[in-house]
């Protein structure tokens, strides 16, 4: 028992304490969180925009060209792996300019997530009873006002669980940032592995941190969901 413990302590020392290797983990976590937060903001903006264009087209038949562009975007983004998109954006589109890799990652993951958010939000908009829309219009609200005051708030509440899920998926997907040599949480653990030739300990630590963050996110989303539900109770 003492033997096992002393070996564990030794491994722990080599992987995390020696040469301040824990910093690979903490710095990596910060990078992961930064990418996720900004990508989520970009994704939600793109997602709502695309969802509104698509559902406006479905409801009114207007915005034909914008709708075609949106559908193309959805098909391409959802039909190709996010790693490939990340590599194309970094090595292809931004090849000839010097640009912060963080920005590249945020753009890539934001554009990717936007496609999924768009379909989630669109399903939320389409799930709202037609009578809500008519009630808004009959009072004199124009199309945009009806969307903003009446449809979107209800749609948002309906799709909140799905959006929370998308946030969790996005957080985990950023683990491929290492492909463009970003030192995110996953890469941090991997760097430690390459130094200490010990795979289990750093990678289990990385996994545990992802899990912790996800549990915290789930808790927060659940709380928001309950609060919104109470409000219409």
């Amino acid at each position, binding site marked *: 028992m003492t033997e096992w413990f002393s070996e564990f302590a030794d491994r722990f020392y080599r992987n995390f304490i020696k040469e301040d290797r824990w910093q690979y983990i903490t710095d990596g976590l910060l990078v992961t969180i930064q990418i996720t937060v900004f990508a989520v903001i970009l994704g939600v903006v793109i997602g709502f925009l695309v969802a509104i264009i698509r559902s406006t087209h479905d409801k009114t038949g207007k915005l034909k060209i914008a709708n075609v562009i949106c559908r193309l975007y959805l098909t391409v983004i959802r039909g190709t792996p996010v790693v490939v998109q990340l590599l194309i954006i970094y090595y292809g589109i931004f090849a000839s300019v010097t640009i912060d890799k963080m920005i590249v990652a945020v753009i890539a993951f934001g554009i990717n997530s936007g496609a999924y958010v768009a379909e989630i939000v669109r399903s939320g908009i389409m799930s709202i*009873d037609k*009578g*809500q829309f*008519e*009630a*808004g*219009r*009959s*009072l*004199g*609200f*124009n199309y945009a*006002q009806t969307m903003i*005051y*009446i449809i979107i*708030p*209800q749609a948002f*509440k309906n799709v909140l669980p799905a959006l929370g899920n998308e946030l969790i998926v996005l957080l985990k997907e950023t683990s491929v940032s290492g492909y463009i040599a970003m030192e995110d949480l996953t890469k941090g653990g991997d760097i430690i592995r390459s130094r200490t030739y010990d795979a289990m300990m750093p990678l289990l630590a990385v996994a545990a941190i992802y899990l912790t963050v996800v549990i915290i996110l789930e808790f927060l989303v659940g709380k928001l969901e309950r609060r919104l539900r109470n*409000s*219409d*109770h």
Partner: protein
Amino acid sequence: MTTDNVLISVKDLKKKFDGMENHALNGVSIDIHHGEVVFVVGPSGSGKSTFLRCLNLLEEPTGGTILFEGVDITDPKTDINIHRRKMGMVFQQFNLFPHMNIMKNLTIAPMKLLGKSKDEAEKTAMELLERVGLANRADAYPNQLSGGQKQRIAIVRALCMKPDVMLFDEPTSALDPEMVGEVLNVMRELAEENMTMVVVTHEMAFAKEVASRVIFMDNGSIVEENSPEEFFSNPKSERLKSFLSKVI
């Protein structure tokens, strides 16, 4: 009645839904005057709801014109949103906004569209709520109300915009029988205050009592119109006779 008393003038109104063979409305013409309470009755599928929903362009007519307060609202250049503020509508399914409490349901349109202050809008809403006996439910959410209460709130929501006409689309059809009376009472009061109303309904007794004119529609056309006394006691067309024999 003189023509300058006309609030809504409908001429040869037509509506054909995509993919349908027959016209839902087949050239309907009617003048609705200030203070008039017009009831529209007829079998289901007769086009009466479509007619009502065309009046504020919730359904876009495929032909004909509608003059509302002298303005052709079927003209694509007309901003219909301005005119809809003057046309209150009450739906069969109430369509209250479930994510807002009652006060917010009642004040959002006057505040956002008429530029009323919060205090002003809430004062108007409160007065109207008191009149329908629901002042104590101002903070409730629609889900906490009964069907009859919801519909009374829906009427108040439309009235908060100070409309010139109220359109009722089968306002009691989704209600439990014991709740019909409370909604009809509110409508009766409105009629007594000379509110112009167009009511699509199956409540024949109520039509007989409140209407200034009753219209019978069938197959997308107005078949017969008359004062309520004549309409119910002395129907002229065979179709109306047969309809009345089934519903009364």
